[in-house]
């Protein structure tokens, strides 16, 4: 078990602010956050690569915050395909085993096995520079896993790969890292879908802090704060200021908003969050179409309402002409309410 207490660092770019968390063995934790949220900082602080200003790290009850990097039983896979250029693929993976004191023959045989697991059995004698990006990352992954460290950390490992390759490796990922009930896996990413797919526990970070953690589906359905909500959604959630009065919900200056199934808070200002799938063509609300773009097999449309801007997600590829008016409906099931302090106060009554 990895226990992190009040971890604080001081860096010119992003500092960790008082991070406390408990990681349990046998789990895959995905850490989600925008660029600059502190995800990499967290991994590096755990690894010992960035110094701590405050806080402690305990592995199985023993404090390791003062241990040198090489004694921490952790592995790291970087975003930028880091492999040893001067060694063959086989020696790359055998490297940590040799440092552990294993004989060359034994190290190489273990390395060969791991390389077969990641699908690179035929490439053992090549140099990393001769491999494609995806293959290089597999080498890095094999090397990280071969030493069976307690903690395996991957820092946006697929970010530098092309779309198709990312999808493919994402699918393979569970199989690749299977068979480690004893270890803890930390996987950082900026993509909400990736975070929700790969982990059984999701941690959301903003500005060096953890703002939410829990099972991905639950977090997605009910993000605890506005910050967390904006990170977890892709395409982005739209926030509209509104208010509650006499048991009804209003957008902006006073347009009535749907609220079936929602328990409304007492009268007062409230922030209404619209998920992209909350809006559908055909309905009571009028908006001007701004930008529209395609993403995969969906269309994202930016809409200009009287009360603010929102984003609509539509299945399939459809053309929406900028500048024209469109009537849409807004579904209350995909609507969330946030108080002025950012807390999620959505309560559904069904």
């Amino acid at each position, binding site marked *: 078990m990895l226990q992190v207490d009040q971890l604080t660092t001081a860096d010119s770019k992003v500092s960790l602010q008082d991070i406390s968390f408990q990681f349990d063995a046998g789990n895959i934790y995905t850490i989600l956050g925008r660029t600059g949220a502190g995800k990499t900082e967290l991994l590096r602080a755990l690894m010992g690569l960035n110094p701590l200003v405050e806080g402690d790290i305990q592995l199985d009850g023993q404090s390791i915050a003062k241990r040198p990097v090489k004694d921490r039983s952790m592995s790291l896979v970087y975003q930028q395909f*880091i492999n040893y250029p001067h060694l063959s693929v086989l020696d790359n993976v055998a490297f940590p085993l040799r440092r552990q004191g294993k004989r060359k023959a034994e190290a190489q045989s273990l390395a060969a096995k791991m390389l077969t697991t990641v699908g690179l059995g035929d490439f053992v004698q090549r140099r990393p520079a001769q491999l494609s990006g995806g293959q290089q990352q597999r080498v890095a992954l094999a090397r990280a896993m071969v030493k069976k460290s307690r903690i395996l950390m991957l820092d946006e490992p697929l970010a530098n790969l092309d779309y198709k390759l990312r999808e493919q490796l994402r699918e393979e990922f569970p199989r690749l890292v299977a068979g480690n009930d004893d270890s803890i896996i930390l996987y950082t990413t900026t993509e909400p879908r990736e975070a929700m797919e790969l982990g059984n526990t999701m941690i959301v970070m903003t500005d060096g802090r953890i703002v939410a953690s829990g099972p991905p589906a639950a977090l997605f359905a009910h993000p605890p704060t506005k910050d967390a909500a904006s990170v977890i959604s892709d395409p982005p959630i739209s926030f509209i200021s509104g208010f509650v009065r006499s048991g009804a919900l209003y957008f902006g200056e006073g347009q009535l908003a749907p609220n079936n199934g929602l328990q409304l808070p007492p009268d007062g200002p409230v922030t209404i969050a619209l998920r992209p799938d909350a809006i559908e063509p055909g309905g009571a609300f009028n908006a001007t179409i701004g930008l529209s773009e395609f993403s995969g097999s969906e269309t994202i449309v930016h809409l200009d309402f009287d009360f603010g801007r929102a984003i609509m997600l539509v299945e399939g590829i459809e053309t929406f002409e900028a500048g024209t008016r469109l009537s849409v409906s807004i579904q209350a099931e995909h609507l969330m309410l946030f108080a002025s302090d950012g807390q999620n106060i959505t309560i559904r009554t069904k």
Partner: protein
Amino acid sequence: MNKFYHILKTLFLFGWSLFVVFPFLWALTTSFKDANAITSGATYIPWVDYEPSTQGWSSLFTTGSQGINIVGPFIDSAAVTLIASLVSLALGTLAAYGLSRFEYRLGFVKNSDITFFFISQRIMPPIVLAIPFFLMLKELGALDTIFGLVLVYIALLLPIAVWVMTDFFAGIPKELDEMAMTDGCSPIGAFFRVVLPNSVPGLVVAGMFCLIFGWNDFFFAFTLTFTETQLLPVSIVSLNSSVTPWWSLSAFALISVAPLACVAVIVERYMSRGTMSGAIR
């Protein structure tokens, strides 16, 4: 217009090539002359303008009063240059790595100041240090010895090694070192096992420059050695000031510069690969 540039370019390259080889060709042909060949002005082509003789060359390898010994100075030059270059390269590489990876602080002095300190040693004209070095080596009993000269040359060549390697290491991502550490290397281990094997181009360039500036030094060898230790540049200058025939001088000169001319081939290989630009910024 293109044709014009092309012709201009070819002429230019041809002209410059001629200019470059001229002294060598002249020395070569002169080395095969004897007293008869230079009585009435410059002569160029053997057998046509004059009768060639091997007097110049053979005199280099005869010791004793008639001969000019080139073997001794050659060995001394080689010894001093190689030892000083190796030491400078080793120490300089370590220092450059440290400066590129760690943060040093001594009061208000920080990394860039330390690097500047190393590199600014090159501004120091040899004159400034010549006499003090003389006295210092005298105290150490190291005047006219290979050891004394090596000591002085290290001070000359260290800045060069630091200069080249600092830029080179800046181009090696720190993540590589970090990866080595997560794989079980200490910081020193990471340097020797991972960074160093990937530093060969930089080491070659730095080593070349050390060899060049070491082998070609004249002034310090001149002021700090006399009879026991004789380096090639000093030998040829003393030959030049005494009555030494041109053919011996020319032969001596050619042998002196031959070794480093071979180095040019190696440097060219690294230069055209584009690996030098990192070392030179």
